[in-house]
Each structure stands twice: as C-alpha cells, then as structure tokens.
C-alpha cells in the first residue's frame, strides 16, 4: 500500500536551533514528494517538492528537505528555527490517479513548536 508516515506528533525546538521534521514513505515507482505547512485558521501552503535530481531540495521560508532513497525518507529541515515557524507540517506523496490526475496522500501531520 502507498503511504506516508510522520512518526512524531509534535516536535519541540528552541528558537535559533536547527529543526528536523521526519517523513518516510512507501510507494511503488518514483516518489513525488511534497511538504506543506498549515498555520492556525489557514489552508495548506506549499513549501517544497522533490521530483528528481538533487537530493537536497530548497523551498520557501528557508526550509529544505533531504531525499534519501535507501531510507525512503524525506525529512524537512531548517538551520535556525523561528517562533513564527510554529505550525502543523504535512508530508505528502503525489500518486497518479485515473484520468491523468494526481492524488495527494498525506502523512498524519507533525506539530512544530518553536520556543523563544
């Protein structure tokens, strides 16, 4: 079965420290991986994606993600966390669907809390 796992319900980090939000996936074929962030009372905002090529992907707001095929992981990282990064983060894989569409399979989400 195609799935995405985010093993941590919550990640706590102090402001200024590096942060990592973990994601592992299980898909057949090439994975198309995405990270989205959701702030309170807002929709999901696209952060970055991995399609092919360089395993280190840079995205919005200073975030980056490292694709590791052997570990089937796509962890989200940031060198220095900000209090304003506190939000709910979703990892997702895009799968081909009937009719040429793509369907996003989301992980359960990880709440990131950055403390001053």
């Amino acid at each position, binding site marked *: 079965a195609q799935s995405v796992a985010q093993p941590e319900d919550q990640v706590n980090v102090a402001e200024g420290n590096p942060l990592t939000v973990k994601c592992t996936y299980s898909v057949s074929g090439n994975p198309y991986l*995405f990270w989205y962030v959701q702030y309170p009372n807002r*929709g*999901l*905002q696209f952060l970055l994606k991995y399609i092919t090529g360089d395993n280190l992907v840079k995205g919005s707001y200073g975030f980056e993600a490292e694709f590791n095929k052997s570990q089937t992981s796509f962890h989200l990282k940031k060198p220095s966390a900000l209090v304003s990064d506190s939000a*709910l983060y979703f990892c997702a894989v895009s799968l081909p669907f009937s009719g040429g569409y*793509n*369907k*996003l399979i989301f992980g359960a989400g990880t709440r990131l809390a950055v403390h001053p």
Partner: protein
Amino acid sequence: DTEVTQTPKHLVMGMTNKKSLKCEQHMGHRAMYWYKQKAKKPPELMFVYSYEKLSINESVPSRFSPECPNSSLLNLHLHALQPEDSALYLCASSHGPGQGSSINQPQHFGDGTRLSIL
C-alpha cells in the same frame, strides 16, 4: 495572500438548512479539488473536477453536491448535514491533464471554510 479564495470563512448552519461554499482561482488551473479536514488531521479528498467535469467522487454522501460553473469557480452545495460534518472545508487547484505533468505540480489551497453544524 492565497491565490485560491474561499467564501465564507465561517459558516454555522442547522441540519435542515441549505447553504453553499464557494471557491475561486485565477491561476489558469484546470483541476480543482474539495477536501474535508478535521482538527489536527490531514485533509481528506472529497471531489476532483477537471475541465469543469466531475472526475472523482471519493464516496462522499449525497448531502454534499459539488458544482463547477466555469474554469475558475467551484461550489459545494450543502443540504441536510449532520453534526459530524462539522470541519474545515478546503478547496485546492492545480494543473490538470494536458497542462503538463500534473503529478509533480503542487496543489494550491485556499484558507478554507470552517463549517459548524448545530
């Protein structure tokens, strides 16, 4: 600012009411989506429209009725909802088939309508 606009932001309705949620995008996307999101959970896909035609219905109860009047607009008509239908309803859009490879393009989400059923 989000490029997908949803109205209203909040909606409270009784179980016998009829109401509609609206979504608009001007990014030229030909695929549009409705999702339901419960608190602290990931979004669940409800419907997919492509080129104004309903392409995917994820076994959604008939009390939810989607409509796509044109390539920029997506509506969700609500009737006789149940308390368990209270949730955040998100609209999204993306490239559709024929607009390049849609599988590697992100979906763009609106800020949602928070629906409460009394």
